[in-house]
């Protein structure tokens, strides 16, 4: 803490060592990464905020929106102070980054060639920040409509620091053990989606079901909000995936393309699955499917061909549908907005698919997957999936239990009935 504070003081005065001598910044790459960063922010707020809040009941619309916005604020600060350093600071044992970048000391306007030689180090840091922001916001889907806001804030801060930051280091940090192992994760299939999905499952189990779950009808209160959110997610995901090329180049174009086709394929296949299963093609189904496709293509986006991405998308739509419509009722947990069912399941699917479909023809910096003749990658992907899932699930469980003991996770029964908006925030969403 003292260390942090002195780093803070130093930075305040000496600031961001904005020298002008290092490797040259490419303006095109920088423009692309900056706009991609903005796009990923848009995914969280208002994108995900709307996607989720349209699905809850009217009385919880603000509480749900609030979660995404609060995460954005909290993690934006955490990342600058400690998160970036824990994730991307000099390696310690393959497990975590060191303190060197605390308070962004040493993170300036020049490129850091370890991560991106053509854009300002701050631009790389900002792009990564938005990934750290969206991940805990995704988890909130699992415990929608019943978590105390104060507990949520504490959870966000702890989870980001204890789960997200180490995982980001494992997979993306120079020296991180999964990176060294050779597991591929183009834009965060494991770091973002598997980790948030595993935490979501832990949260759904720890918090328990909503009052009235499966006995009362809980239809989405405002599907147009959800659909605006889905549209913004699709739009923003181009920043997420194609931005992960860290430059405006051919690889970015390929990642953009695979992202788009996977989303389209999964939107259609979820719709088709529900049509066959329930007799009607629904808009919420199409929207859920396209998100599932975006999730599944995330780890693979820069490693697979366009046609492979269609297959990944088609599979993601069907499999996530089954996990949500069949598996969830079977086991009976209340993953309210399907954070596990879509991000957990879709993320695992995508990580496996990367092991199957990756090809060095698309990206020489990648690897060849099973269908290009090599099984090694698939093995590494399975290790990465297992490690990320288990680590996130376990630590999330510990954090949640601890918070529950100290301050309680769940709002009072009466408050749940009255809704989060009035009881947690003293506001009403609408007076239409």
């Amino acid at each position, binding site marked *: 803490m003292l260390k942090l504070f002195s780093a803070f003081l130093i930075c305040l005065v000496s600031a961001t060592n904005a020298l002008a001598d290092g490797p040259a910044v490419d303006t095109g790459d920088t423009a692309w990464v900056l706009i991609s960063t903005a796009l990923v922010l848009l995914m969280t707020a208002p994108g995900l905020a709307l996607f989720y809040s349209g699905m809850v009941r009217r009385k919880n619309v603000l509480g749900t929106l609030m979660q995404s916005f609060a995460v954005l604020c909290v993690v934006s600060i955490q990342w600058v102070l400690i998160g970036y350093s824990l994730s991307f600071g000099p390696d310690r044992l393959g497990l975590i980054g060191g303190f060197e970048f605390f308070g962004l000391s040493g993170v300036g306007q020049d490129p850091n060639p370890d991560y991106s030689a053509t854009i300002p180090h701050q631009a790389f840091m900002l792009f990564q920040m938005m990934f750290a922001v969206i991940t805990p916001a995704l988890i909130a889907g699992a415990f929608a409509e019943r978590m105390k806001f104060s507990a949520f804030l504490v959870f966000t801060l702890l989870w980001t620091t204890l789960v997200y930051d180490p995982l980001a280091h494992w997979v993306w940090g120079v020296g991180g053990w999964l990176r060294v192992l050779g597991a591929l994760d183009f834009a965060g299939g494991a770091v973002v989606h598997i980790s948030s999905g595993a935490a979501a499952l832990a949260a759904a189990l720890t918090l328990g079901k909503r009052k009235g779950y499966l006995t009362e*009808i809980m*239809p989405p209160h405002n599907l147009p909000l959800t659909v605006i959110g889905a549209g913004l997610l699709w739009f923003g995901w181009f920043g997420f995936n194609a931005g992960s090329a860290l430059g405006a180049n051919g690889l970015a174009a390929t990642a953009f393309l695979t992202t788009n086709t996977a989303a389209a394929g999964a939107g259609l296949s979820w719709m088709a699955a529900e049509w066959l299963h329930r007799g009607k093609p629904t808009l*919420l189904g199409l929207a859920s499917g396209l998100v599932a496709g975006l999730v599944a293509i995330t780890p693979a986006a820069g490693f697979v061909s366009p046609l492979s991405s269609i297959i990944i998308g088609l599979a993601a739509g069907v499999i996530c549908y089954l996990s949500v*419509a*069949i598996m969830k009722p079977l086991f009976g947990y209340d993953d309210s907005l399907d954070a596990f069912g879509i991000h957990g399941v879709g993320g695992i699917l995508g990580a496996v698919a990367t092991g199957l479909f990756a090809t060095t023809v698309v990206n020489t910096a990648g690897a060849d997957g099973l269908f290009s003749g090599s099984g090694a990658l698939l093995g590494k992907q399975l290790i990465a999936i297992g490690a990320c899932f288990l680590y996130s699930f376990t630590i999330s469980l510990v954090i949640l239990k601890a918070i529950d003991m100290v301050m309680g996770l769940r709002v009072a029964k009466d408050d749940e009935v009255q809704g989060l908006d009035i009881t947690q925030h003293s506001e009403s969403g609408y007076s239409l």
Partner: protein
Amino acid sequence: MKKVEAIIKPFKLDEVKKALGELNIEGMTVTEVKGFGRQKGHSEIYRGAEYMVDFLPKVKIEVVTSDEMTPKVVAAITEAARTGKIGDGKIFITPVDDGVRIRTGERGTDAL
């Protein structure tokens, strides 16, 4: 004075209004309500889960009118609101002791 209270299908509102207009009924109050009855509802599907929604959107029209006009009003509504299909709705006639026009303080049928 009677209150004639009709619960009808929403898309019939315009026709009922017109029919009442022809009787020189100059005032009515309309409320959006939900009806439950013999007419069956519909199912809705959200993420693979199917729900039965048995409350259907209906419109309630309230017309307070003199005793003499009441049968005519009832007849006019019955005719205008009928489609012949289940769920066309009901009319209830209830007694009204008195009425007041707030603007003028007029009482009874003068208030209508």
